[in-house]
């Protein structure tokens, strides 16, 4: 596009001031390209004048330069445009913008687009997008107007464009009816823009999952370098009408830093530490929180490891034992250990006491699916690694990443006190579930 400033002497610039201002008049998102892992553009959408897809060449250049797919810089300047991209599900969403706009604005929006696709199609893959290209187009049309976000709330979008289901697809092909909402969308006009109107259920249910993730770095000797708990409360609310819910905690002081779904009344939280809200219909994230770092974080597993290479030998020793630590009496499940072994390692010949392990000789990634930890018989993985003949002893230390789950436990000790509903007469079924997971849980060796 020719709309770019040309160097002009400042005196001329001043005279042209009125003229030059319009050069900036193409803010926000101009176009969107979807690029798959093999570097093909498989969808493009323009909200303003068409931008040639050759602009993506700059992106491909950056893609080539990057060693890993996630190392492509999120913002790439080109002579006339800026490309802002996010990578999700092995698809690059490349937005083209022409002038100053907060980069996070675009990034956040692109992620919102991906979330919406996922919400609509279950998965957000190239195949799913191609199969539903018309719905995708309709969604993108509603989500941006002239490049500025219009409707990004899933409840509103679903009123405008119904998500495809197998049944509906069949019906549509037979009857020729459409995916486009048959009712006029009123959500955008209401005071509760995140909730559809006229919601009806025969079974009224509200489920809340308190999920906490432990991010930790454990050093060689087993002491904790840093550990924090990040939690979310995900809700699945299927309630008739316009219910008004309040949710209170036994120990709200634990929550150090919170961010809310827009439905939560902030003042009420400030004053009483109670979550009061009219929920969106369906699945949504009510709250995410951070547990203050002053509290000591319980580390539910420990790792004993001995990974060593001897000078001059082409063999290395590998020993790993896992055990439960502070688990509050709950079982540690779905344990998965993975480690990136040094490049010099050719192969690993290991013997797990339980579960199975795999070693990819190309990527050097070792992963061990442990399953449940039995405190009586600790799982271990022992054996040898063979090195390239003649290669010197690697001096990198692999780190061990651990994933695990603990059901029915919020490791911070957070407890929901009660959940009340106002505004509707029926008695809903209420359920609360707790779970603790490993977030970025890393052990250095």
């Amino acid at each position, binding site marked *: 596009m020719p709309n770019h400033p040309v160097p002009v002497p400042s005196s001329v610039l001043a005279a042209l001031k*009125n003229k030059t*201002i*319009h050069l*900036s*008049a*193409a803010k926000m998102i101009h176009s969107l390209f979807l690029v798959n892992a093999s570097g093909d553009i498989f969808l493009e*959408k323009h909200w303003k*004048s*068409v931008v040639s897809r050759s602009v993506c060449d700059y992106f491909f250049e950056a893609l080539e330069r990057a*060693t890993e797919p996630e190392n492509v*810089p*999120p913002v790439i*300047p080109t002579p006339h445009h800026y490309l802002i991209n996010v*990578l999700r599900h092995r698809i690059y969403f490349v937005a083209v*913008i*022409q*002038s*100053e706009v*907060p*980069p*996070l604005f675009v*990034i956040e*929006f692109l*992620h919102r687009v991906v979330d919406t696709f996922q919400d609509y199609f279950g998965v957000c893959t190239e195949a799913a997008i191609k199969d539903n*290209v018309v719905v995708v*187009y309709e969604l993108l*049309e509603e989500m941006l*107007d*002239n490049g500025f976000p*219009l409707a990004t709330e899933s409840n509103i979008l679903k009123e405008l464009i119904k998500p495809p289901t197998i049944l509906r697809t069949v019906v549509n092909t037979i*009857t*020729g009816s*459409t995916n*486009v909402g048959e*009712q*006029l*969308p009123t959500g955008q*006009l*209401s*005071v509760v823009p995140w909730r559809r109107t006229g919601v009806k259920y025969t079974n009224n249910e509200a489920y809340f999952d308190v999920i906490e993730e432990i991010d930790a770095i454990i050093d060689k000797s087993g002491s904790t370098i840093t550990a*924090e708990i*990040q939690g979310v409360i995900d809700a699945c609310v299927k309630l008739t009408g316009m219910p008004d819910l309040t949710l209170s905690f036994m120990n709200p002081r634990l929550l*150090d*830093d*919170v961010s809310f*779904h827009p439905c939560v009344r*902030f*003042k*009420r939280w*400030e*004053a*009483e530490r109670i979550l009061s809200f009219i929920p969106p219909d369906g699945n949504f994230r009510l709250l995410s929180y951070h547990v203050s770092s002053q509290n000591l974080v319980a580390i539910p597993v420990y790792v004993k490891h001995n990974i060593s290479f001897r000078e001059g030998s082409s063999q290395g020793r590998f020993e790993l034992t896992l055990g439960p630590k502070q688990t509050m009496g709950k079982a540690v499940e779905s344990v998965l250990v993975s480690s*990136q072994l040094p490049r010099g390692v050719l192969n690993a010949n290991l013997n797990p006491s339980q579960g199975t392990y795999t070693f990819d000789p190309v990527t050097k990634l070792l992963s061990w699916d442990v399953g449940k930890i039995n405190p009586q018989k600790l799982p271990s993985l022992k054996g040898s690694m063979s090195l390239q003949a003649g290669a*010197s002893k690697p*001096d*990198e*230390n*692999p780190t061990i990443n651990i994933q695990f789950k603990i059901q029915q436990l919020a490791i911070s000790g957070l407890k929901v006190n009660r959940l009340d509903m106002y*505004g509707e007469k029926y008695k809903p079924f209420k359920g609360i579930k707790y779970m603790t997971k490993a977030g970025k849980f890393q052990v*250095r060796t």
Partner: protein
Amino acid sequence: MQKLLQLPVNAVNIVKGVQGVTQGQEEALSPVLTPDSGPQNWYSAVQPEELRHLRSGGTGGGGWGRGHDDLKEMLDSNKDSLKLEAMKRIVAMIARGKNASDLFPAVVKNVACKNIEVKKLVYVYLVRYAEEQQDLALLSISTFQRGLKDPNQLIRASALRVLSSIRVTIIVPIMMLAIKEAASDMSPYVRKTAAHAIPKLHSLDPEQKDQLIEVIEKLLADKTTLVAGSVVMAFEEVCPDRIDLIHKNYRKLCNLLIDVEEWGQVVIINMLTRYARTQFLNPNINESLLEENSEKAFYASDDEEEEDKKAEPATLAKRKPYVMDPDHRLLLRNTKPLLQSRNAAVVMAVAQLYFHLAPKAEVGIIAKALVRLMRSHSEVQYVVLQNVATMSIKRRGMFEPYLKSFYIRSTDPTQIKVLKLEVLTNLANETNISTILREFQTYIKSMDKDFVAASIQAIGRCATNIGEVRDTCLNGLVQLLSNRDELVVAESVVVIKKLLQMQPEQHSDIIKHMAKLIDNIQVPMARASILWLIGEYCEHVPKIAPDVLRKMAKSFTNEEDIVKLQIINLAAKLYLTNSKQSKLLTQYVLNLAKYDQNYDIRDRARFIRQLIVPTDKSGALSKYAKKLFLALKPAPVLESPFKDRDHFQLGSLSHLLNAKAAGYQELPNWPESAPDPSVRNVEIPDWSKCSSRKDRKEKKVEKPFYSDSEGESGPTESADSGNCESDSGSGSASASGSDESGSGSESEESGEETESDEEEEDEEEEKKKRKKLDKTKAKKQAEESAERCTIHTIHQISCIINFDQFDMNKITSVFSQTLAPSGSIKMYELLHRIKGEGLAVEYCFSRQPFSPEPNMVAVQIQFTNNTNSETKNLHIEDPRLQSGMRIREFAEIDVLAAGESVTVVMGIDFCDSTQAANFQLCTHTRKFFVSIQPPVGELMTPAFLTENDFKKEQGKLMGMNEILEKLTLGEKCVNEHVIVERVTATANLSRVPCGSDKECRFAGKTVSSGCLVLVTVTTKEGGGAQLTVNCEKMLIGTMLVKDILQALSQ
């Protein structure tokens, strides 16, 4: 099949209802497109003449039939399913980037298709190709023009949206007209669409700028949250430099902010940041001098905070004390809760606002939120870390408590690792350096070599910045020289070189060690660094240096260019200091260089030879050769690449790229002295109606200064029960009947649909009137304004704090509070005489049963004709109600003579909700949009129960249906009588006899569904009391409790 095809007809029924009569006519007019006589929907059809033209154009033009005959046929068929299929295939083509422009004529005539999905896809197509096919696109315009007049707001909005997206220059005047009209539409949704259309038109035709600015100015005055974000976006694109347009709307924008949708929030916050930089004083003005000093002196030493404390009194004494403008404070306070937003862009926007505008002591609060964002997607992390890196240079203390959050995991992408390293380096100081260095040591063992290199550089920077650890770092780096990985060694050499330059005398052994390394290291940059070191400090290693040169001369031809240059350099330096040993070697090297392939090296050799080798012809310069080569070189400063990046607005694209992006609005410097703050004052029109002095005074305290911004749509309206007090302030102020603008805006806007914004239409006129008023009041205001400004701002802040986001149900509390003190029937304003052009309308809830329909609330309306001519045909039209609500209109008033008043009664069934009833009040000349919203207490009629009945009914309404609340009675609530008076004033209830004198009971029924409402007030010793409300309708119960509490505790 035909029957099935009519399915989407349902979709249209809603529209059909509104369209009413016009439909039949339209159908008759367009036979071509309606073979299956289904009802019209959305837009009316293209006129037949146009269509014929289109068809002949289609077949006659010929050029477009080539590849898509089948699609063309499908589009021409009269089956919606075929059309839909065709459109889907076409859209898929567009999505894949295939050219589908030749189908334009076939597609465009389906713009009036009845099937909604076909129509939507046609829009998609139109917007994509209209620019290329301008003439044909024009044919669709009339359809949209008709849509603009549709009674349904969504259709009007959608028509405007598509019309403005068609980039065809010839329709600019039509767009302009449409935008202007939509900007005064009664529906906020349409007005929002108008705001969106402004930048579209501006980019199509910048000549329209001045007219568009007028529209922006008008929309900026809009009070709905829906419009605010969009119009500021338009402002930013069209006229970001017209900061003067913001003045009057500044406080309103601040107050609306929390309820604006997320994307609008970002735009508004960024704009307000710029605004604040032009209007307020630097809150850190007293520290800025100091900061500069401390930064120069101790890049990384003393705790800044401590220093400030010591020095502050001194500087403070010199300067005049700084007082923050209350508006500045308002902005900071209202943006703070948004740090809790789930949207990273909003959090970042607030963070940059605080960074650029807040006093130093308050900036710290943003750190926590920014650290939280680092849990998000890696792209978000990337941007946030860039900004944290910049911030951490200026305000290191802020992020120090979160040091560990920046520790690096092996799973982070490299670009994130490098940024975290940058932040860690910026945060390093004497106290934490040992921890940080330990952390760095583990990084050096990482498998990611780029990251290892960056870590070594980071160590180097720590060493230069913090003198105490320089030796430790140097030793650590020297150890790395024996690392197996050559890249690690090379990077260490480069960093060591820089460190050694600081104190070369003490480190000749390291230089010797490095000289040995030259045999093994192959990385050119490292070799070059070593050679430079040896050359520079050859006097410290007099024996080794010539030997190194000897080796290098041997391998010269095989070296990389940068190494060759350094060899020449070394040779020259040695020649000057130790010519005896190195003369021949130097000659040899220079000779080799003379015939090198690289012209740079040849040039250098020639130049150096002339300079150092004395010949007859050698110029004057050679005398100074030694000075030239062996001058003392200043030690390099290793500084962050993020230093001084904060002259770009943080969070902006320009900041991220460290280059000015197109359209970047420079963040202005703080003004030396603050511009006049009174420009933000919004006048309160017409005080004259206030009867008594006392009355006025009361209002002054209660009423937030900028009355206009008060009553916007539902969401911000009310607060939770916990904070009634200040809420009542704002609420009653705007609702109190005697004040014009307050009550005017309240009744207009309180319904969440806000259909009734008549102010827009009359704005022009009102402006004129206001101007007149202004002149007369100017003096008085000027005197008062300064003082008032502060009072009001303080008050307004407290109101805002209590704004809740969306508690629409509690709006009524606002009303009933005003009822309480008087005890008599309260009049509300429906239409102010200025807006009504002389017709003033007030209403009250007469509490009489409405005889024609017992489940309607009787509303008594009083019309006063203040004009000099008679008003005719007063009646109601076009009620817009929530589902279930009904209206019983009053009989039309034929004539209302000048100066006369007349009272009528109408009935409204509110369905036991406090939703507003919106309708148009029509005279023979004008229509006014008005709305009536009932306080919860007016939704009931008295019920007469005995004591026993009362207890029995109360027993049935326990548990969830009972609401208990403790309260302290207000000073004047001394006896039973006052309590009864207040409760009955708040709600239309009757007293129930009671044996105890400590208890008062009241009973009523809701008007429309007849649910019982039971109220008990039990008084206790010492002014305490307990309020019990039993009602099956919990919402009514809750609201009633609040209102009664309010009434009793006053």
